[in-house]
């Protein structure tokens, strides 16, 4: 039996080592060859070597990179690297000339005339002109294109028209306030008409724009490679430099699992990792070999919408009491270790037309909250810590989704003023269903959105319908009129006046419980310079300014 044992052991060990050998032959010599960060950074030191950058984006890859068709932010970002847009937006959120040198809008706000740059060519040599612009708008509007987002963004277009070679005109049936914002996002990229027609359904593999980068290779669900456009010479004036981009080749990977993305960055497989969760920020902050970049999103922050039709929230004093009881700073500390933006306003502080005074409307004040509840007739008569009125306890549903840990904190804060909040953690589809049916007291909502028109979506009672976003069920003709007008006011100053009034009403009526806004994070090696978010980090990431240190 001894011989048997020995031979069996030898055989097994042999098998195991064979297995190990097989797996070891796949080991690359040293750091993996090709596109790893370590290698990409090294040759940059020797002049004349191509500068290569490897980027990991934490999130799902867009199904199509063409943002005229695909509805997701990540598609808009990739499209904005490959193609230019008619209008640009600088860091101060001013609209600036880009492919359009100038534009004017008719007195009634419906007819837009764009004067185009005359020195632009697409990657395939096709000249950029009014014909090309018209082609792109017509493509977006064509139902066959199945544009999921762009078509809705450009508004009620009735006609597109080539006035002369470099003048393009577009007419809306009614003024469309969001138009300039839409044109400045990667969702309305200008593609080469020749390429769209030539490749047809295969265009996704051959995206040809006029942008600073050209598509070299697109392997769906794996990676996308971009190379520098050597002829690029029409960057908007607010960019850090002019001429071609300073990076020769970019490899982009979308990785949905944040731990994997961060591990790959730490292993040197990428120079930059974009949009990783706040939980990982602390370890990067303390790492001397990593540079952290952050940006602020725009839109409607993380909040709980209050259903004003459900007692006791039909009483404005109860709603105001809840607002005073919420301690946003504490939530951000406990939940995100401080790596988020506490806000009492109904919009992200970085949003265009943001009303800053909203931050002071409801200071964290338990006494004020208690007084408001007493005034509303809610008292704790039986000493159980929960207030009652007419024998009914002050009980609310807290319908939470997506951020699991949020419920217990808000619940504990409301308990302080004698409110019994009952958490219901639901998946996304159920959240939508509950919101649509009004079966909630308070419900989670977060709408990071580039344009302040998000207020019209969320608080105009015309959106009180299935699929609509007016979850608070508040109906006020005055607010509706303001929002209706804001959606049709093309003048930015006037539009912001209106939207400020709207924020004031939403705040005064205590329709929502604002909590915090998310931050945008990217980590990179110290060699990477000039990389960062644009004015709206969800759709703007400026790769053009990026360079690798010598």
């Amino acid at each position, binding site marked *: 039996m001894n011989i048997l044992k020995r031979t069996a052991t030898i055989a097994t060990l042999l098998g195991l080592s064979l297995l190990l050998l097989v797996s070891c032959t796949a080991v690359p010599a040293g750091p993996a060859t090709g596109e790893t960060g370590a290698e990409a950074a090294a040759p940059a030191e020797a002049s004349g070597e191509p500068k290569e950058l490897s980027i990991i984006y934490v999130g799902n890859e867009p199904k199509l990179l063409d943002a005229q068709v695909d509805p997701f932010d990540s598609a808009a970002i990739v499209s904005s690297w490959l193609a230019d847009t008619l209008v640009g937006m600088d860091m101060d959120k001013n609209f600036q000339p880009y492919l359009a040198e100038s534009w004017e809008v008719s007195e009634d706000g419906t007819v837009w005339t764009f004067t185009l740059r005359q020195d632009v060519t697409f990657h395939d040599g096709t000249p950029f002109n009014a014909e090309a612009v018209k082609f792109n708008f017509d493509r977006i509007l064509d139902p066959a294109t199945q544009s999921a987002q762009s078509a809705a963004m450009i508004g009620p277009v009735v006609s597109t028209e080539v006035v002369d070679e470099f003048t393009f005109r577009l007419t809306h049936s009614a003024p469309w306030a969001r138009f300039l914002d839409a044109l400045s996002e990667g969702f309305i990229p200008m593609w080469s008409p020749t390429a769209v027609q030539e490749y047809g359904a295969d265009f996704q593999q051959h995206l040809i724009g006029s942008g600073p980068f050209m598509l070299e290779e697109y392997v769906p669900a794996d990676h996308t490679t971009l190379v520098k456009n050597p002829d690029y010479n029409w960057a908007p004036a607010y960019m850090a430099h002019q001429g071609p981009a300073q990076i020769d080749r970019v490899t982009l990977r979308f990785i949905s699992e944040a731990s994997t993305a961060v591990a790959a960055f730490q292993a040197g*497989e990428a120079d930059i990792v974009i949009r990783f969760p706040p939980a990982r920020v602390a370890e990067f902050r303390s790492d001397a070999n990593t540079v952290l970049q952050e940006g602020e999103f725009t839109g409607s922050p993380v909040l709980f919408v209050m259903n004003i039709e459900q007692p006791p929230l039909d009483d404005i004093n109860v709603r105001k009491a809840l607002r005073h009881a919420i301690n946003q700073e504490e939530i951000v500390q406990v939940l995100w270790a401080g790596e988020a933006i506490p806000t009492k306003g109904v919009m992200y502080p970085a949003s265009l037309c943001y009303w800053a005074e909203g931050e002071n409307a409801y200071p964290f004040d338990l006494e004020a909250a208690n007084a408001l509840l007493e005034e509303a007739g809610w008292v704790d008569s039986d000493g159980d810590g929960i207030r009652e009125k007419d024998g009914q306890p002050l009980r609310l549903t807290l319908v939470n989704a997506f951020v699991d840990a949020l419920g217990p904190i808000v619940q504990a804060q409301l308990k302080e003023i004698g409110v019994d909040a009952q958490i219901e953690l639901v998946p996304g*589809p159920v959240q939508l269903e509950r919101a649509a049916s009004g079966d909630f007291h308070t419900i989670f909502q977060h709408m990071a959105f580039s344009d302040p028109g998000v207020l019209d979506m969320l608080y105009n009672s015309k959106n009180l319908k299935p699929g609509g976003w007016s979850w608070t069920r508040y109906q006020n003709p005055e607010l509706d009129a303001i929002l209706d007008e804001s959606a049709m006011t093309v003048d930015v100053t006037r539009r912001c006046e209106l939207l400020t009034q709207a924020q004031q009403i939403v705040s005064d009526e205590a329709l929502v419980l604002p909590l915090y806004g998310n931050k945008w994070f990217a980590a990179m090696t110290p060699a990477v310079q000039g990389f960062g978010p644009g004015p709206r980090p969800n759709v703007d990431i400026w790769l053009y300014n990026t360079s690798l240190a010598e």
Partner: protein
Amino acid sequence: MSAYIWSRLATLVPVLLLISIFVFSIMHLLPGDPAMLVLAGEYATTPEQIETLREQLGLNDPIYTQYGRFLGNALQGDLGNSVHFKRPVSEVILERLPSTLQLTVVAMLIAAALGIGLGTLAAVHHGSWLDNFSMVLSLVGVSMPIFFIGLLLILIFGVRLGWFPIVGGTPLERLVLPALTLGFASSSVIARLVRSSLLEVLRQDYMVTAYAKGLTSWLVLFRHGMRNTLIPVVTILGLQIGGMLSGAVLIETVFSRPGLGRLAVEAILWKDFPLAQGTILFTAVVYVVASLIVDIVYASLDPRIRY
């Protein structure tokens, strides 16, 4: 034998029908209007967009008409069009299939080699430290969640040691860590089975007879021992195909591989119903057919098995 194969094939029909009903119901069991779910929550939508999609998904027809159409089309290989890819679902699935096949085949080889190796080692050295070591190792494999093993391997071999690329490198290099993860998890069950099965075989009279005939230890172990040990192992290997396919869902997500498992996750996450239905149906059919093949192999390996 052919009668057996035919009877097994016949039992496939109700199984596949049940699967198709289940897969079809996914879209309708979720609360709310499917078209609204696809569009809302991700970006601004208009009621017109929702109506167009309802039309496109055929949601305005009675439910039995919808199922009839779904089944009829599926039988002809038409799984509908993906909402987000805007291409036939079957095309997208076939694009992702090679990656999952590579992963599962290599993982299966690793599982078999590791499992049979460790199991044999443990049985032959029954009661020794080698036995304990193998069994502890397999206990770890059985009890640790597969995505956790994956993350551990990433941290050890990817970040600390830097031996294998995590997301970059050549396709072969990229295969090592995910295949090891998946293979290791599956090997544990196989190792335990091989051990107990071999222990039993080693006690059989025919083993003693084999020794008495003067055969070498090698011959006794491999010709008489392993042959009898491996019969139940074949069944387990077959069942592991199911485990591999579901493991692929997690592994492909953790390692960001462009396979079927990740496709299914994304389809569900993005509420792309035709794509989710297609991927799940396809995977289920693969599993059922694979189990059928294993049953047939099993029957031919062991002439005693007849149903």
